[in-house]
Every structure is written in C-alpha cells, then in structure tokens.
C-alpha cells in the first residue's frame, strides 16, 4: 500500500498536469480554461474581451505579425498576437482584406490585436493560478 507521502506527491503531480492542460485550453480558446474550472462569469468576460479586441483589430485592418519577422519588435509582436489563441487565425479562416497602415485605424487595429493576446495571456495565468489553488 502506498504511503501518504507518495500519494501526496502523486496528487501534486496530477494537479500540475491538470493545471497545464487548463492553461493550454485557456490559451487556445479564451475563457475556456475558466469554463473548465466552472468560473462562468470570468469565462464569458475573457472570451468577449479577447474576441472583441481581436475582431475590432482585424476589422480595422491592423497588421498581424508572423513568425518570420526579421527584427525583435516583429518577433515580440508575433508572440503577442499568437497569444490570442484561435483569434490569431481568424483572418486566415474567414479571409480578410489584409492590413492597411496608411491611416490611424490600421495602427489602432495592430495594437488591439496585440492587446487581445496580452489579455488572453493574463487569462491563461489566472486560470492556471485558479487550477493550482493560488487564486480564487
């Protein structure tokens, strides 16, 4: 029979694995991590906030950075954009007119898409913290 210490270590490892899975689904679909943890309100808020920012950014023809950026600013932009989960792929799936940075709207759009990713990243950390029992 396993000792209580071994069982506690096993539970801790299992808890970490579950938390990582929660973080991955929270990244993939904004709010889904909270939904899994039965935080209905936060799930809805994160989905609407991240989705709204990303959608507004794409509709304002903001620039979506790719992994092939040649400078560090572009790489950071890609990481921020990619953090938005499924919303990063939205223009590829639905099709878009492409970025237009000739006006202010395009610049606003670029920032909104990046902000969507950052907000989702905070959501991932929040969901991970809840799953680990560090946040309520």
């Amino acid at each position, binding site marked *: 029979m396993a000792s209580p210490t071994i069982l506690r270590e096993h539970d801790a490892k299992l808890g970490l694995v579950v938390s990582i899975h929660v973080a991955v689904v929270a990244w993939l679909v904004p709010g889904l991590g909270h939904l899994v943890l039965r935080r209905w309100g936060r799930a809805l808020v994160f989905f609407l906030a991240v989705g709204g920012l990303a959608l507004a950014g794409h509709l304002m023809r903001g620039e979506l950075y790719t992994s092939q950026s040649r400078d560090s600013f572009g790489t950071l932009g890609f990481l921020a954009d990619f953090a938005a989960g499924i919303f990063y792929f939205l223009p590829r799936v639905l099709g878009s007119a492409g970025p237009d940075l000739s006006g202010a709207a395009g610049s*606003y759009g670029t920032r909104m898409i990046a902000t969507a990713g950052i907000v989702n990243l905070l959501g991932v950390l929040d969901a991970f913290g809840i799953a680990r029992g560090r946040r309520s």
Partner: protein
Amino acid sequence: MLGELRISHLAAMAIFAVLVFVAMACFSRRTFAARLKFAPWSLALFLILGVGPAWLMYPFSR
C-alpha cells in the same frame, strides 16, 4: 470574409478601454461590487488622460 470597420479615433479608444478594463476588473478585484466600481472608474481615467492632454495642447498647435 471580414469587412472593414471605419470609426473615429475616440470610438476606437473607447472600445479599447471598455474591453481592456472589464477584463482588468476581473483580474484585479475579487468581489463583483469591487469590479463594478473599478471598471468604470479606470475607464473614465483612461479616457480623461487620453483626451485631456490633447485638449491642453490644442491652443499651441496653431
């Protein structure tokens, strides 16, 4: 295919502020009442700090 959204600078800033501060309220405050207080207060401050300096600089722009 995604369309195109044509809005003013102020509307773009307002949309940005509303979505960000609703999410921020969820992160930083635990109770619903505290979130309800934090979100509009931060939103108002963001808009004032965004528009206020522009108004202050306007007389010097000509």
